[in-house]
Structures are given as structure tokens and as C-alpha cells.
């Protein structure tokens, strides 16, 4: 029955605890605290190096004020990256397929950038609503359009992440079911479908990383406009 394909997105309960709780708590255990030793273990070295590189790259276009957001953006990136990648393991649950979680991350952070802009530099923040060089006749319409585009940003952020991950997981389940059912009937087609499944899984790994990055990048862009 077609409805059962969406069952993978319902978090099951076990002894009263939903699986989503364990899925969200897990990334915290995978990243150890940096130690004070001069030479730490391999995991810590790798972790420190990659987080430093990433934060340095992300904060390049931001001014001094924006650097205060470094810890938040870096931890958001690590969180989303781990949640997405861990969801690709068998039998696991991906919390980022739930719109509630993504909107819960997107709306407060976007709202924070808007409020910061409106409080500290209101003229500059409002100036973004009208691009330079527009003909005078178009000004009213363009302001309305830009306001709508501003208000739609948090919804776009949340829905983009949800839709990408949900679609990916759904595709994997559909193609896997097809190849499994076809195996006794038409083995050649089943082998081709399995090859397709393999390629799709590679795509999903890429999408998992890219979507996390896009989320954080767009947030840093919104911050850049307003801070």
C-alpha cells in the first residue's frame, strides 16, 4: 500500500521514549571535547582542523560584528551535517526530515538577523528592500515583492532542508523495494535497479552534506546583510 512508504518518517516509541530523542542526542557523543594536550588523538586533530577551516571560510565575508556568530554557525553546521549523514545508516531515523525541527531552527535564527538589522542599522536594513537603479514607476511593486521575499526566507530555509532529505529517503526506499521485489521475477532488471540504488545512495550522501552547508551559508548571508 502506498501509504506505508511514509511510515519511515514517524518516530517510533520504545519504553515511552521516541527514537527522535536518541537520534538528536547522538551527534553530541561523536565529537569529543578538545583537550589541553599539545598532541591529541587523531579524531580530535581531524575535528579541530576541519572545524577551524570551515569557520574560517564561512566568516570571510562577515565583518567584525558578524564574528560573534562563529560558534553558533559552526555548531549548527556540525549538527545538521551529523544528523543528515547518520540518517543514511540502516534503520536509523533522520530528525531533519521533520518540518517542525527545521522550522524550529530556521525561524528563530532568521528572525534574529532581521531584528539585529532593524535595531542597529534600520535605514540600511530597510534599504535592502529596494535594489539600486530601479525605474521610479516600479518602486511600489518592487518593495512589496522584496518584502514578501524577505518574509518567505525562513519558510524556504526550513522547507528546503525537509523536502530534500524526505525526497531522498523516499526515493531510496522506493527503489530498494522495487529491486527487492523484482529479484525473483527479472534478475537482470533487479541488478540494474541495484546499481541505480548504489548511485542514488552516493547522491544522498552528497545531498546530506550540501543541504547542511546551504542552510548555514544562507544564514550567514542574511547575517551579512543585517549586521
Amino acid at each position, binding site marked *: *500500500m502506498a501509504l*506505508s512508504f511514509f511510515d519511515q518518517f514517524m518516530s517510533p516509541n520504545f519504553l515511552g521514549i521516541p527514537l527522535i530523542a*536518541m*537520534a538528536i542526542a547522538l551527534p553530541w557523543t561523536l565529537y569529543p571535547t578538545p583537550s589541553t594536550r599539545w598532541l591529541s588523538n587523531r579524531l580530535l586533530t581531524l575535528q579541530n582542523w576541519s572545524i577551524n577551516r570551515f569557520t574560517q571560510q564561512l566568516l570571510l565575508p562577515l565583518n567584525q560584528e558578524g564574528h560573534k556568530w562563529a560558534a553558533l554557525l559552526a555548531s549548527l553546521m556540525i549538527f545538521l551535517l551529523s544528523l543528515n549523514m547518520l540518517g543514511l*545508516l540502516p*534503520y536509523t*531515523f533522520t530528525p531533519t526530515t521533520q518540518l517542525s525541527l527545521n522550522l524550529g531552527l530556521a525561524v528563530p535564527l532568521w528572525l534574529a538577523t532581521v531584528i539585529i538589522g532593524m535595531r542597529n542599522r534600520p535605514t540600511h536594513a530597510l534599504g535592502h528592500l529596494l535594489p539600486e537603479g530601479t525605474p521610479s514607476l516600479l518602486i511600489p511593486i518592487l518593495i512589496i515583492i522584496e518584502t514578501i521575499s524577505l518574509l518567505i526566507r525562513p519558510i524556504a530555509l526550513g522547507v528546503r532542508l525537509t523536502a530534500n532529505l524526505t525526497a531522498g529517503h523516499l526515493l531510496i526506499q522506493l527503489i530498494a*523495494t522495487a529491486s527487492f521485489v523484482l529479484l525473483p521475477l527479472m534478475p537482470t532488471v533487479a541488478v540494474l535497479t541495484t546499481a541505480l540504488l548504489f548511485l542514488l545512495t552516493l547522491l544522498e550522501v552528497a545531498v546530506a552534506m550540501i543541504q547542511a552547508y546551504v542552510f548555514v551559508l544562507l544564514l550567514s548571508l542574511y547575517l551579512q546583510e543585517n549586521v
Partner: protein
Amino acid sequence: MADRPVPVVEKRLMDVKLGELGTWLGGRDFTPNGLISALRKGHDRYYNKYINVKKGGFGGIAMLLAGYVALSYLWEYDHIKHDRWRKYH
């Protein structure tokens, strides 16, 4: 090897004899602080044995992830068992 007799509660689990299991369980610290400190000690033991070593490999994290997959399967078993019994998917 007759050392001083150690109280049952303080022995490690592998040293406790089967008959003493009840006493051992009864004497353990089940307060929230006790549970948290037990989790922390377990975490530290795993971390220092497999990850915080000079030439740690992928195995340290791989065991964690495998345990996570197993735990997720256990969590979802009630939901998944219907897929095995179903004729049409």
C-alpha cells in the same frame, strides 16, 4: 590468591558470582547522580580505550555507529515486523 575479602557491591560486574547478583544490584547507586556518573565513567572508559590513543583507527567510531544501528533496529522492531509479514508492500 587469598587477598582481603572485598565487599560484593564494590566488585566489577564480571567478578560477581551468579548467586551474588541480587546483592550486587541492590547495592548499586540508582540515583540520578549515580546514573549520570556511571554513564560518564562508561564513556570515559570507551573513549580512553578506543579513541584517545596514539594511532586510533576507524574502529572506535565504527563500533559506536554499529551500536547505534543495532539500537535503532531494536527501537523500531515493533514497527518493522509488519513489513516482514506483509504480502504486498
